[in-house]
Every structure is written in C-alpha cells, then in structure tokens.
C-alpha cells in the first residue's frame, strides 16, 4: 500500500498540470477581445482607436497558446492567479482568506454527516421493512426533497428567531471585537481552535453556537444521501452467503451486523464520501447566504455570475486539488475497509 500511495502522490502534480491545461484552454478559447475585459479598468482605457490592440499586446493576449499558458503557469507557481474583482484582492488571497471559514464548517459537518448517516443507514438496512426502516426512509426522503434554502430558513426560524439559541453569522460582535484586537493570536483562523489557544472558552462557545445551525442544515441534507447509500449497501451485503453462514452458526444478530456486514457495506459509502467532502469544502452558497457566513461557496458563485475569470480559474483549480486529494484518501480507505482489496 505504501508503494501505491507514493505512486499516487507522484502522479498528483501531473494530474494537476493536466487540469491547469484544461482550465486554461477553456478560458483561452474566449479570445483576446473578451479576455481584455478582465484587464481594462475603465471605459477611458479604450478611448483611442488602437487602445484595445495595444492593451492586448501589452498583456500578451495575442501570443500563441503555449506562450500564454507558460506565462500563466509560471505566475501560478509563484502564487499569482491574478486579481479577484469579487474579493477585491489577489485571487490567492481571496480564496486563502475564505478557506478557513469553509474548512471549519466542513470539518465539523463531516463528523455528524458520516457518523449519523451511516448509523441510520445501518439501522434501516438491518431492520429492513420494519417501522424503523420505514421511518428512516421517510426521514431521508424529506431531507432529499426539501430545498436547502427552505430548510435553512426553517432552522433559522426555530433555533434562532423562536428559541434564540443558535444565531446566524460567524461570531457575535463582541467576539469579533476580540478577534480584531491586538491581544488576539490567530494561529489556524478556525475560531473554535484559536479561541482555545487564546484561552477564551467564551469565544469557543460563541463560535460553536454559530456553527450549530449551519451544521444541522448541511447534515440533514447529506444524511438523506448517505443513509440511503448505506442502507442499499447493507441490504446487498446481507444477502451474501457468508452472512447466511454466520447466522447459521448461531452468531447473535448484533455480531453479524457489526462484524460481518457493516464493514463490507462501507465501500460504496467511501466512494461517495470523497465527492461529498469536496462539496463541503466548496462551501454551500445557500447555507452561507442564509446564515450570513463568509466562505468559498458564495465567493465562487458570485465569481461565476459576475464572470470574474481569474476568480473562477482560481476556484476551479482549488477544488480540483481538493477532489484529487479526496479521491486518494478514498482509494486508501478501500484497503483499510476491505482487506481483500490490495492497492497496487
């Protein structure tokens, strides 16, 4: 397995290079007359007749593909992805500054999504066609059918407007004031972790309170997906001969499920988890909008709508990287889940 991992890590840069070429090609196909719009700052820049031609030459947009790609790749390797109109700063800085917000929410969401989703799926599968199975499936259908915008607002209404427990936003204003002060040491840019590093349990609690409502929203929407996959996989494994043999041997049902069935049912779950992690890291526009949280989802959506090319490229590259890494983790997890699988 070690050799497999090393091989995959060595291939990683080649895959990324391929992705950069594809993404750059798509943008390059727009042509210099359209691309110059990303460089022109005001109509006055095009006042004279030859202004567009001059600017195209100045920014090298008339150069052959390989020259432009090489220059762009060189800039990329130095961390220069251009200027983001949406973020009003360099693209790398715009993405980098928003990533911790999204990552914090994603990481805290993964645990309930995966753990609870699998747990419910196992119960539904193990108690097939019982009240529990039907109840969990109805729960899943509602989650799958409910638009995340509607559910998010419902969560906001119940847990904040009515109960006042979980406010929207990133932190309360008093906590934000502390974060902006000189006494605060930013280490990870995760409010929950940095607050503990700074010895501020009150800010940790505040940060967590602000996370719960978005986590509930994200989790419910993903539980529906995970538990259905788990349930289907469980049902398939339950029909295997070795499971019948285990029961015939007189093993308790709990042991059959936990020792023989559950683990073997996790392969499809692992497969979809990779994509799910990418989507969580991509941020969810709706959750960020409803709960007024900063993050990459809204940033990327705004960049797409406003045709902010540099931001779009930067976001695409970033998510591609996350996807490749996630898939590698998923592939490794196959071997851990099922010893029959040997990674070569």
């Amino acid at each position: 397995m070690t050799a497999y991992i090393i091989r995959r890590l060595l291939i990683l840069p080649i895959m990324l290079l391929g992705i950069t070429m594809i993404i750059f090609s798509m943008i390059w196909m727009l042509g210099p007359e359209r691309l110059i719009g990303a460089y022109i700052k005001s109509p006055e820049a095009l006042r004279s007749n030859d202004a567009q031609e001059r600017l195209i030459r100045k920014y090298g947009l008339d150069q052959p593909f390989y020259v432009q790609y090489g220059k762009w790749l060189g800039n990329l390797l130095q961390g220069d992805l251009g200027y983001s109109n949406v973020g009003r700063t360099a693209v790398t800085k715009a993405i980098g500054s928003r990533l911790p917000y999204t990552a914090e929410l994603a990481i805290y969401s993964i645990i309930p999504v995966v753990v609870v989703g699998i747990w419910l799926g196992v119960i539904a599968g193990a108690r097939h066609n019982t009240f529990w199975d039907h109840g969990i499936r109805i729960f899943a259908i509602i989650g799958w059918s409910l638009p995340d915008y509607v559910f998010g607002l419902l969560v906001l209404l119940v847990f904040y407007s009515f109960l006042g427990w979980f406010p929207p936003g990133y932190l309360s204003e008093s906590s934000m004031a502390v974060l902006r002060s000189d006494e605060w040491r930013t280490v990870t840019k995760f409010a929950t972790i940095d607050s503990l590093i700074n010895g501020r349990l009150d800010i940790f609690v505040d940060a967590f309170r602000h996370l719960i409502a978005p986590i509930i929203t994200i989790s419910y929407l993903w539980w529906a997906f995970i538990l259905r996959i788990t349930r289907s996989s469980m049902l398939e494994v339950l029909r295997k001969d070795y499971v019948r043999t285990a029961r015939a041997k007189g093993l308790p049902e709990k042991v059959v499920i936990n020792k023989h069935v559950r683990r073997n049912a996790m392969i499809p779950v692992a497969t979809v988890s990779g994509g799910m992690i990418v989507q969580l890291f991509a941020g969810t526009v709706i959750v960020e909008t409803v709960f007024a949280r900063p993050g990459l989802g809204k940033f990327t959506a705004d960049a797409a709508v406003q045709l902010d090319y540099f931001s779009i490229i930067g976001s695409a590259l970033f998510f591609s990287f996350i996807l490749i890494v996630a898939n590698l983790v998923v592939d490794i997890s196959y071997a851990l889940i099922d010893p029959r699988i040997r990674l070569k």
Partner: protein
Amino acid sequence: MSKKLFVLVLALVLVSLAAFSAVKNPDTLIVAQYGSPESLDPQAMWDTASGEVVSTLYENLIRYDGESIDMIPMISTAVPTMENGLLTPDGKVYTFPIRKGVLFHSGNTLTPADVEYTFERGFLGDNSSGAMTLIIEAVSGGQYFSIESWFEDWAGMAYSDAVIDREPVSEEARAKLIEFYEEVIDPLFVVEGDNFVVNMKGSFGPFLYTICYYAGWAGILDAEWMKVNGAWDGKADGWWKWHDLQPEESPIHMDADAGSGPFKLQVWDQENKTVVLQRFDQYWQGPAKLKSVILRDIEEFSTRKALLEAGDVDLIAVDPIYRGTFDNTPGVTVIEGFPRAQVTSIHFTWAVDPASEYIGSGQFDGEGIPYNFFDDINTRKAILHSFNYDALIEDLVNGLGERVPTDLPKGFFGYDPNLPMYEFDLGMAEQAWKAAWDGQAWENGFKLVAMYNSGNEVRQTCCEMIKVYTESMNPKFKVDVIGAQWPTYLKATRERLCPLYIIGWVADYPDAHNFLSTYYHSEGYYGQRHGGSYTALAEAQFNELIEKGVREPNPVKRLEYYDLLQRRLLENYVSTPLYMPQGLWVGRSWVQGYFPHILRSNGDTTPEYYYAWKAE
C-alpha cells in the same frame, strides 16, 4: 414529556425571550443592509453604500442644518454669501475661513492647505468611479465635466494622446501637463492666510450644494498623511501618475482613512462583509455617544429580519416589498412614507462593449443581441411599453412610491406632472418589436440580459417582470436576469458591459440640474454610459438645454428649457423612471436620534451616527 424536562425547556425559552427586551450592545450601533462599499476613498466613490461610510469618516466645509436644506458651517466657520462678503457679487470667488483646532484621525491638525490639497487631488485624479465631475462642472462654470476634457480644450490635444500608461508620450506633452496644472488648476484653489479660496471660472448657482455634507466626495483629506502614504505628492511634475487610478490603488481605499469625522475606520472586513467604525474621541465637536458603528452586508432579508427581531442588529434595510412585515413586532419601530429625493429607472446601454459576455453571440440568432441592440428606438420603445408600472407601485413597493414622467423627482424645479408617461401596452410593445431592426429581432429572436444589484428584491422583481412580459410576446425572445454584487454591478454599468439594468439616483444636491445633467447630458454620470448614437443625439437635442438651464437666472425661461428637454427625452424613449420611492425606516425602538434627510445616502435606513444613541 417528563415534568423536569418541560420545566427546563420552558425556562430556556423564557430566558431567551427575556434577553430580547434589554438594550443589546448599548454602545454599538449595528446595521444590516445589502451592498458593500465600492471604495472608502471619497474621491473614488459615488454609490450609497460607500457614501454611508465616507460621510461618517470625513467632513466637508459646510453642511445642511438638520432636516432642512439650509446650509450652516462645518470645517469652514462661515457659509460664503454675498451678504457676508465671502462670495463676490459676480458669484465667482468663494472664501471659506477654516476652523482652527480640528484634528484628523492621524493626529495632524487640519489647515487650509489640506483643503487645497483635497480639491486639487480630486480634480487631477478625477477618478471615473468618483463624483468629482460635479465639482469640476461647477468650478468650470458648467463648461467641463472631466479634467481630461478640460485639458483637451486647453492644450489642443487629447489627454489620451498626451499620456499613455501613466507616462507622457513626449517632453512636449509633459511640459503641457505641468503647465496645465500651474496655469489652470492651481489658481482655482488657493490658500490666503486662514482662508481657503475657490476662484470659479464662471458662476454656477448650485456650487455650494455640490460640496455640502452629506456629499462624501467633498470630504477633506489629511494632506500630510496622504502624501506619506503614496497619494499624489502635491507637485506639478508627475500629477498624471495619480490620474484616474483604480480605487484599490488609493491608500484610503479600504485599509485606512484620512478624515476628521466623528468616527474613524477600524476595519473593513472583506470576508465577513463588515465595516467597523470606531469613535474618534478627539473630534472637534466632542466625542459621539456611540463607541462604535458596525455595518454588515447581509443579502438575505429573512436573516436580517431574524437578527433585528432578536435585537442582534439595530437597523436593517427593508425593501418596500416587505412593508407591513414589522407592523406588530414588539420592540421595532417603523417610519414610512417620508420623501426621498431619488428615482429608480430602467437604463439602456446603446452601445455595449463588443467584448462583453452579456451580449452572448452578438447576433440575432436567439442566443444574443448585437452590441448596439438598443441603438434602435423600437427596442427601447418595446421594453418601456412592456412594463407594468401600476403593478410595481401597488403590489411590489406596496404603495411606497409614485411614478414620475422623467428622471426628475417630484417637487424639484422643472417637474411637470402633466407630461405623458409610458403606458403598459403589450400591443404597442409587440408592434415595436416587429419594427425593431427591420424585423430581425422578431423573426430571429434574441437573448437579452437584464441586470440588478443582488439583494435588491424590488429591482430583481422588475427585471423578472421585463422577462415575463417580453418572453410572452414571442417564444424566440429570451431574457436572462442576473444579479451582481454592488461594486461589480457599478463597474459593469460603468464599463458598458450590460445592455439593460436598473439603477437609481439619489440627489447629490437639491436642484434639477443634478438629475437632468446626470441622466441625460452626453457627459453626465449616467448619460455617458449609454454610448452609441446617444452621444450624437444628446449633443443635438439635450446638452444645450441642460447647459442653458443651469445658467439661466430667469425661472420662467429655465422652466421652458426643462419642459422642452423632457418632451424630447420622452419622444426618444431614452430611458424611463420606474418610480420615485418613499422612505421606509425599520429599526429597534431603542435607537434614538434618527432624522431623515432627503440627501443622505441610505437615509432611509440609517441615522447620522454622530447624533445617534441607544436607550429605551
């Protein structure tokens, strides 16, 4: 449920409810609106979101008195008039005695030299996203709208021929640029002892209004701080390097301020879309009651509503579409129906940048429009007859608005309620579409983009109305409705990227010229965005009337000019106002000190922060 659990839940709910009634964050005013500032450089902004902040950080020479439009001193110790001798009888020389003892946020003392620097930097910079055109027009006696046109007229060469990529093309050009500053600009603004003097090129009635607070673009800058931090160095040689910079190239764009106002900039947090202002304790009128002001950009109305009801924000922006939502909400005050000197309109770009993504294929093939789509009067006519104006007023803004015939608010000089207004008539619209582009539009179809600023649900719905009615006439017609973040939206409209958009104008000063010139003069802030054949049309039919109107002292004659102008505008289907809004202010009842002012940016959402405080 067990008894214990019931009691626990009840206790939690009661505690939650009890927490709502006490004044939260008593020293801090928190505002939730939609739209972030474009820039905090007073001379690089002209939008309400930026103006909201800038007018708190900076101060002007003079200001309005309370809710009225009477002027009183601010940084100047007197308002120049002919009666007090600070304005010459020919209306060309204004003298402003500068107040002593005013400190900037940096600790520097404000002097007349700072005022001189402010005006000269503004003129020479003449940022295309800023409002200096108002003052340039005024000081030039109505002759010029931009420093480039002034230079071109004086030097006999176009600015774009003299300077390329921030460098003079030749030594001759460089000499001309230096001479332009020394002979034209420098003499306009001089320091005489403790006074700042403006030597106008011609009299211009509304001049004082163009620099009166709440006009953020006339905020006085800390010259010393600016020079140290990379702004124009105050010298003749090289001023062009700072001409029409991008907002982000300014040292006071987002990270710092150079003002003397009652609040200073603590931070503009881009990720959290929050601006935090901190009280300036050395403010010359004494420190404000509030310690800080926090302005948050929250697009989703439901979220803003929830925050207000919980008391976690004090004021929110509410579109009139939600009028009535807070009628019975405890702890929330609603004030509505007060006048707003503003108009919201449909705008056309007559010649879109051919490189724009928003024209799709660029042809009549059902997947785009030609870049000069709206050059044809029939296209404009069709759109303007496809809009249900009554539904907008009655249903969308819930009666908090009224129609006006042109982009001139009711009550302004020149407003005529008897002028005709475009009717919602799909029959006429269809005829116009069939005539447009010799029938090409009708036969081949098109795909048109209609744009609004995201978060503004009224404008979004207006765009969707255009979509519904336009598409209903011909299955080959497609309208895409796109929302853009406020700063990007402004940039797209300025760069002529979007063919159709909805935008408003809040009066900069209480005179008809501010609207008529802005909207219709070929060099007006909105007028210049049309492009295409609009320029020739305006030069032939509108410009002269606008220029004559502002200079005409006889009100009867002035009225004749404006009447003829408006009739010509209507005949040519230039654009149309959708409505003139009335104010709707929604906030927690513990917010005190609010008074509306028709000329204040976001005046229907926020108070003047210096005078505001929180108490039940």
